[in-house]
């Protein structure tokens, strides 16, 4: 028995979500009275790998192969499953992000291991193994019991927190056996979007809706977001009408986010929108309509016109109160 956390890197660097996952793995391993193994795939410097020890990794294992720098769910699942079998690991943890979502289902089939996705808390019980997850895009929760011997969890962002727990893990290397035909998908080219801050990673999000009245009125939104170092998002009608890109749509059928601070500007707060943002730690609503349903889920509210409120807020933030 052991716990394995897959530490995803982005161009050789780990993120807060990686450290949160390692913290969670350490906590689970302590409950199970076993070791925390952290597996990194692709080229990562030793100085970066060492950081994983700060959050409780007992062993840090690197698959330092340049062919694996680009994510392929098929290959990554193969690498992880070979390592799981070698170590007789029982609990496999991934972050609930793009890569975790892509890898975990394949891993589940390879290892005949039940998968609980978007887990929100430490297990409710270990025997049987029951975890809490989000269902209906945040409108409810479910307790999922995994019945297989091996278990896979993907952890929702900001559900456990980053917890320091320093250890003295040495870095080991692992070389999986990979058949050439696994490298079948070729990336022809890559385009990067203008958004510098990735919405699903952002700690602060400024989101605007139909209340802005016109796609030409987004400058105050962007200025306020820039002042806060926040990502810009929007509601569904705004992206459906082509005012803003689909990439910015948050809500039940768009991106589901969990930032520390969420500003809903000119967004009435339809149930589908709220479903996508309800895990935000703090919600601020700015709306001209005092009866807007968004105020019933917000922590702080301002009744007013965004076109005047936002520039004032931007000024306050920039001038440091």
């Amino acid at each position, binding site marked *: 028995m052991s716990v394995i956390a897959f530490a995803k890197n*982005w161009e050789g660097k780990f993120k807060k979500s990686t450290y949160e996952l390692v913290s969670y793995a350490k906590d689970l391993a302590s409950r199970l009275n076993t070791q925390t193994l952290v597996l990194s795939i692709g080229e990562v410097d030793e100085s970066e790998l060492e950081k994983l020890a700060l959050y409780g990794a007992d062993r840090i294992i690197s698959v330092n192969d340049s062919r694996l720098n680009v994510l392929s*769910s*098929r290959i990554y699942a193969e690498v992880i499953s070979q390592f799981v079998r070698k170590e007789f690991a029982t609990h496999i943890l991934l972050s609930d992000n*793009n890569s975790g*979502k*892509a890898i*975990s*289902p*394949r891993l*589940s*089939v390879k290892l005949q291991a*039940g*998968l609980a*996705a*978007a887990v929100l808390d430490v297990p409710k019980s270990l025997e049987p193994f029951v975890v809490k997850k989000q*269902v209906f895009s945040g*409108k*409810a*929760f*479910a*307790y*999922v*019991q*995994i*019945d*297989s011997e091996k278990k896979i969890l993907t952890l929702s962002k900001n559900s456990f927190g980053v917890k320091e727990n320093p250890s003295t893990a040495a870095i080991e290397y692992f070389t999986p056996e990979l058949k050439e035909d696994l490298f079948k*998908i*070729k*990336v022809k*080219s*890559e*385009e990067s*979007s203008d958004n*510098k801050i990735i919405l*699903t990673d952002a700690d*602060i999000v400024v989101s605007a809706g139909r209340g802005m009245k016109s796609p030409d009125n987004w400058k105050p939104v962007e200025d306020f977001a820039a002042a*806060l170092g926040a990502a810009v998002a929007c509601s569904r009608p705004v992206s*459906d009408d082509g005012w803003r890109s689909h*990439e910015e749509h948050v809500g*039940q059928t*768009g991106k*589901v986010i969990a930032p*520390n*601070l969420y500003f809903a500007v000119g967004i009435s707060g339809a*149930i589908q929108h709220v*479903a996508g943002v309800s895990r935000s730690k*703090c919600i*601020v609503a700015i709306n001209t309509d005092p009866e807007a349903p968004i*105020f*019933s*889920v917000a*922590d*702080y*509210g*301002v009744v007013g016109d965004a076109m005047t*409120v936002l520039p004032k*807020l931007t000024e*306050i*933030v920039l001038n440091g*109160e």
Partner: protein
Amino acid sequence: MKILVCISNVPDTTTKIKFKEGNKQIDDAGIQWIINPWDELALTRAIELKEDASNPIDEVCVINVGEAMCDATLRKALAIGADKAIRIDANPLDAYFVAGQIADYIKKTPYDIVLSGIESSDYNSSSVGGMLGEFLDWPAISSMTQLGFDGDELNIHRAIPGGNQILQLTPPFVGIVQKGIAKEPRIPAMRGIMMARKKPLEVLPAIELKALSQIVEFEQPQAKASCKMIDAEQLDELIHLLKSEAKVL
């Protein structure tokens, strides 16, 4: 070329979810059931591709693992433009069970492209597409935002954090679709609804397969404490509270 689109039957997205029998089951009274929004976009794109005669698509089929109540949703998929529908008659126990049933069908009835939505709006596990890829030993494209043809070559885009990748591959593969794959889901027209009645909806028995997980209980989220209102003329108070009280700035 044949496309198979996996369809999940889910409550309408405006539904307020309630539970019954001590939070063990969903209270389905008054629920309107729909095609999972992402699956609907996948289906729309598949039909768009077939309608353009320059594309080598001969058939668009939809498949669902579910009980008889799902037939209405499958009829809607036929009305939108799918050529035929398959329902594997079983209670969809978990994603592993569902993917295993669909994979077994594909092994017996080969398809070139299999599409599924990136997640279902009910259990949010984002699992069936990737599991299918593994059951079939096919590549699976996660977060696929474009699917088209460039002559004989496929034109495929996938969303990655902060951008897009343009991919090169040949069928068979599983495409796990994200928003953007089709502009808007198609609404069935009267003619489509009439035609759907004559299209085949085949019901097949499930294979023996053990689920790996089960939901033991549901829980409603707690109601939020009341919202603190700030005067629009005293916005520095808001920033102050976000810093000192909520501690999020």
